[in-house]
């Protein structure tokens, strides 16, 4: 293989980076489970089929109240969608799911059928991080799927670097922390030390169901059920694992780089 061959090959292939966000988002697999939509009004009276079938107990229907689905605990197995007799819970193909506040992930009440998407950071932080956000990733007992999907954002197809977002080796060089995994007790010290080592101002992103609420392992005493109890979280990205498009959407939304300022729900 010679330099000549590589150059020719590169020229032939052209630019392999996707146009998004300047162009449409890439096509997701047709069987991909996007965000869930909860229309509590459609629920049958007294029905709690979805509650019993959810593996992470993400759905609750206290008596007299409407059904509530916590998307932060959801691992997108879609069992509830399959079992619901009245199609109150449906799965959309919307990849956008990132939120700023934990309570925005709880669906079901009127006006909260779908996720209330993340607001951008405040002006000061946008000025600092808008064009250069360095993230330190900490895998606090993640299963490596969220990590793999974060890694893929660095490849030439997605090219996170064009937004100025980069994953760095030392927390001293980082502006924010990206946490995956339910934060096992054995990783608690390391996570805290990493957080302290970040210079201020700093942001924290919880990626994946495990980091938000413990994921499939919710309730085990070997871990802390997510990062919220240990560090203040600025962005929650649900999924198991979140599709790279969801992660990218979340990050860009945080930095207000998406260009569709009116897309708020």
């Amino acid at each position, binding site marked *: 293989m010679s330099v000549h061959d590589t150059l020719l090959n590169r020229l032939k292939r052209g630019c392999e980076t996707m146009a998004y966000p300047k162009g449409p988002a890439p096509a997701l697999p047709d069987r991909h489970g996007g965000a869930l939509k909860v229309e509590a009004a459609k629920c049958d009276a007294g029905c709690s089929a979805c509650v019993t079938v959810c593996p992470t107990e993400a759905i609750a229907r206290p008596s007299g109240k409407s059904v509530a689905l916590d998307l932060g605990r959801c691992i997108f197995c879609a069992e509830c969608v399959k079992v619901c007799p009245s199609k109150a819970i449906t799965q959309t193909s919307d990849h956008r799911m990132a939120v700023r506040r934990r309570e925005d992930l709880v669906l079901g009440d009127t006006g909260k059928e779908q996720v209330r998407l993340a607001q951008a950071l405040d002006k000061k932080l946008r000025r600092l991080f808008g064009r250069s956000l360095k993230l*330190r990733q900490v895998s606090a007992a*993640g299963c490596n799927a969220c990590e793999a999907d974060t890694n*893929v954002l660095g490849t030439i197809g997605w090219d996170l670097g064009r937004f100025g977002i980069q994953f760095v080796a030392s927390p001293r060089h980082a502006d924010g922390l990206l946490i995956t995994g339910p934060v096992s007790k054995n990783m608690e010290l390391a996570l805290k030390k990493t957080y302290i080592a970040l210079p201020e101002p700093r942001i924290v992103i919880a990626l994946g169901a495990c980091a938000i609420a413990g994921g499939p392992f919710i309730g085990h005493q070997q871990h802390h059920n997510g990062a919220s109890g240990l560090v203040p979280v600025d962005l929650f990205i649900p999924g198991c694992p979140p599709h790279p498009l969801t992660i990218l959407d979340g990050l860009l939304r945080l930095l207000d780089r998406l260009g569709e300022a009116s897309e708020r729900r």
Partner: protein
Amino acid sequence: MKRDTPFTLLTNGTALSWADVPEWPLAEFLRNVGAELGRGERLSSFFGVPEGDALRLVAVLAFDAGNTLAVGRSQPFTGSFPALTATHAQAHLFEREIWEQHGVVPENHPWLKPVRKDHGAGPAVGDFFRVDGREIHEVAVGPVHAGIIEPGHFRFQCAGEEVLHLEIALGYQHRGVEEAITGGPHRATVYQMETVAGDTTIGHATAYANALEALAGTEAPLRAQWLRAIALELERLANHTGDLGALAGDVAFLPTASACGKIRGDFLNLTALLCGNRFGRGLVRPGGCPLDGDAERLSQLRKRLETALAEVQQAAAWLWDAASVRTRFEHTGHLHAKQAAGIGLVGPAARACGLVRDVRFDHPTGWHRFAQVPVSVWPDGDVFARARVRWLEIQRSGDFLREQLDAVPEGETMSSLPALAPNSLAVALVEGWRGEVCHVALTGPDGKLRRYKITDPSFHNWTGLALALRGQAISDFPLCNKSFNLSYCGFDL
């Protein structure tokens, strides 16, 4: 090939009654296991089953040459037991795990340290091993590593740039998977099985499904077994492509590194084409595969597969051509076949040392009873060999997929699972992309899972990395680590 053994023989993916598992007093049991290991057999799993206050040890041996598994158990005992590690090194981690989980002490164990648990923040390996000498300094790396990677601690003892000894301390990702299954299967169990090692979803889910189907005395429909085999090879393709790219990246060979990063995503998207999830979540369930592929979907899969395979062929060709890459890969991180066999290495790492061991070949189950993938072996035992084995496996998996997608079996893909037989033991082995995944399931009198033992291939292979680093320059560590590419969470459970 039949020969005399006191153990009961068992085929991969089948179950037998707990009472039929031969039982011996502790000393005799250990002697028998030792005798089999001495004959060159492998220890697939070795764990404890609590019986009230006492403990019973269970051993699952793999007789690769005889294409069969063997099981045996000890009578309940308390206190301590003579360690097998003293004579057979491949038992060392299993015995440490037994000590940690159940409190019984393996006597004369040469390296009795905790495996996962700790009494503080961060795994305590007690005092790390130290090399004596004025010039020795330690390099301590982790748990937070310099990339997007799982946590683990590496303690090097170095004389200048040379590594004299490497000690690996894991356990940072302990989530309590085995404990959670007890009394199950629960609602969340299958999802936990899929995320034991998130990049080996198909491997672990298939092993779990096979174990449960064996306990239920049934088999998944043939089309489901076919689909599972397809998904397993797709998973292998994606991860091996990613590994070649990562290895190229570590020696600063960017054409292959950047190309493979993208092609890996393409392979993952093929799995997503089948089930909607790039890692195969939701594709494999006990009883079959809930999602099927129609002809249209499968032909699309075939087409995209061809494109991806052609691209990875091109990217890998660059890699093998480059002299700079070969110089870095060859003679680095060397492991002898004898060492590999001694510590019970599995998977591509073992095959790269010249050992012919592959579960699809030695213990075929599911679709592998009908269609074979040739075993990819390379004799040298260095980084080059491990990369080369991955490349061979990519090619052979590609051929297998082409062959299978051209001959699609008919039928349903999902059947309902009957109740699990009580007081039964089932063993399921799957050749995941890192190596042998072993699930052992034991039901109680109520038909619920009383004990479930998961052995990820990384459980065998981390020791291999520690041995391969001896005498290497510490700057070659990332390369050696990537050439093994082991799972931290699969080890930590």
